[in-house]
């Protein structure tokens, strides 16, 4: 087992990794930017090294400084969290050449799945259904028009180097396809340094259902069921649940097998997620694979009674899959709400700043993964996630009602947060009925259908 791990991340996931390390008796080294000097994870780590100025490009993305810190700290392994360098095959290679274990898949497996277009080819080869689309990169406008005609509108233009819901444009007819094709390429070049795009048939009102897979270094791959992440605002997940209200045992078996097959075909190791789109008729299509731990890994942990981050570390240290993971059985229902520093009454504008008072809910079946505290200043340089609240219940309705109860106790002042928005969602009839798709939230928001209530409690600050 490792003696010391460097956490190459920040915020709630850095805290998550440090917690897992502490429970495993592993010493921790946190690297941080100027803006995160007061961060909770920096204080909890055994050692910490400042690696740069606030902007990510000058700190959390600086491979040389992170490796230098790893060398000084004499660490055995690096956990990349999610985002930043978590899916950067070059970073994995640098770790490999420095004899420091990267807690995740090999650079080869990461590369195979990282290029979203190449991943589709892998899926096709493995016999996993993919969204009907172009056979590869679409180079010209004429080619795009031809392929779109064959697929039938509407279509989606996606960046090959994209992911995480970014670098996508939809087109509902030929005129809009032309402009969407060119602007998608332009955006892709700017955002990912790679203008290559491919086309997919746009599946109307799908469910986004993803499967958690765990693979050890001895060739064993299992899946830990699915998460439904269809509640999205502008392609960003905001609410996730396990299991999916749309799932049936036979569909789970088919999708789970497909996920395992795909992971095995690229020699995948460690934790990963295979994302599918599922249409109204319960046909499923491979969309992309995320070769890292995900934000919403928490709901799987609650339902399958496991610690995925600890398992990541164990796998990286060469241990075989833990028996409780290999034979995991789902019990209970879990929901996660992502609390962001955003103002839901103001088009979800980001609201960085000082948290004057922070009180988090508790009680049975409530889990909070958060790095913030009273007096903490949310910096403007990074994503707006300040907390994840997860509730567990014997049934889906229990979990939803528990979330509604817990959100009523969540008291955060000084900045605006999306707590009232989530509270409104827990009251929403379509969500409660499990009758939703990836378009629901944007529809509710634009129709002004979400009533944002003020918190029922006031605490003396």
């Amino acid at each position, binding site marked *: 087992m490792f003696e010391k791990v460097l956490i190459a991340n920040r915020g709630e996931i850095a805290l998550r990794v440090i917690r897992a390390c502490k429970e495993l008796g592993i010493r921790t080294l946190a690297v941080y930017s100027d803006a995160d000097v007061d961060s909770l994870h920096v204080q909890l780590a055994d050692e910490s090294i400042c690696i740069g*100025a606030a902007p990510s490009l000058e700190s959390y993305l600086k491979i040389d*400084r992170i490796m230098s810190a790893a060398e*000084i700290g004499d660490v055995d392994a690096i956990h990349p969290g999610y985002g930043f360098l978590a899916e950067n095959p070059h970073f994995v290679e640098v770790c490999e050449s420095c004899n420091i274990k990267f807690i995740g898949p090999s650079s080869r497996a990461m590369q195979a799945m990282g290029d979203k277009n190449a991943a589709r080819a892998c899926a096709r080869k493995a016999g996993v259904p993919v969204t009907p689309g172009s056979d590869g990169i679409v180079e010209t406008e004429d080619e795009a028009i031809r392929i779109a005609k064959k697929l039938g509108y509407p279509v989606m233009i996606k960046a090959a180097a994209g992911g995480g819901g970014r670098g996508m444009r939809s087109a509902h007819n030929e005129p809009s396809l032309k402009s969407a094709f060119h602007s998608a390429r332009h955006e892709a070049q700017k955002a990912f340094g790679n203008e290559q795009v491919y086309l997919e048939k746009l599946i109307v009102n799908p469910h986004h259902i993803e499967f958690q897979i765990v693979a050890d270094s001895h060739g064993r791959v299992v899946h830990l069921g699915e998460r439904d992440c269809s509640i999205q605002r502008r392609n960003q997940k905001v609410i996730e649940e396990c299991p999916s209200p749309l799932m049936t045992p036979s569909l789970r078996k088919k999708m789970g097998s497909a996920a395992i097959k795909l992971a095995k075909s690229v020699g995948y190791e460690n934790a990963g997620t295979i994302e599918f789109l599922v249409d109204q008729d319960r046909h499923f299509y491979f969309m992309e694979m995320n070769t890292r731990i995900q934000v919403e890994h928490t709901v799987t942990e609650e339902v399958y009674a496991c610690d995925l981050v600890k398992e990541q570390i164990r796998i990286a240290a060469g241990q075989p899959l833990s028996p409780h993971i290999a034979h995991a059985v789902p019990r209970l229902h879990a929901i996660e709400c992502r609390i962001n520093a955003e103002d839901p009454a103001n088009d979800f504008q980001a609201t960085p700043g000082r948290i004057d008072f922070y009180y988090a809910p508790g009680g049975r079946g409530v889990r909070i993964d958060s790095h913030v505290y009273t007096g903490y200043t949310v910096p403007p340089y990074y994503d707006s996630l300040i907390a994840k609240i997860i509730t567990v219940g014997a049934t889906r309705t229990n979990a939803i009602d528990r979330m509604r109860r817990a959100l009523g106790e969540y008291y955060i002042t000084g900045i605006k947060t999306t707590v009232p928005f989530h509270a409104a969602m827990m009251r929403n009839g379509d969500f409660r009925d499990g009758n939703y798709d990836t378009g629901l939230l944007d529809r509710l928001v634009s129709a002004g259908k979400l009533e944002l209530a003020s918190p029922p409690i006031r605490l003396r600050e």
Partner: protein
Amino acid sequence: MKKHDLSVFEIEKEGFRLKLEKGPSVQAAAAIAPAVAAQPEPASTAPETAPPRPKAIESVPLNDIVSPMVGTFYRSASPEGAPFVDVGKSVTEDTVVCIIEAMKVMNEIKAETSGVIAEVMAENGKPVQFGQVLFRVR
């Protein structure tokens, strides 16, 4: 000051200069004495030829040379070699003041300021982090 962990606070009139220092300071006792009575430093006076000043009213601004990277700090090019700079040494922007070794690469660090080395803040052979003060320059 205590709230922000400041231990030194200086103020100077006329060509208004303000100096704040975080964390423990060797000069704490001396510097807390008000520097208001200090004469403004004439711009043309070169530091070496300035008349000796009592520590309590040291109002000449200090620049810091900070580390631009994460690595191990070395004062000389080789273990038995002489240090690049010492207290009292004059530096210009291009003067190499130390080496920071990162990932087996020896990086020569330039002063990027001019003046006289007033204090060596980092320890030879010890790790330094981004932004850490290496030298105080007068």
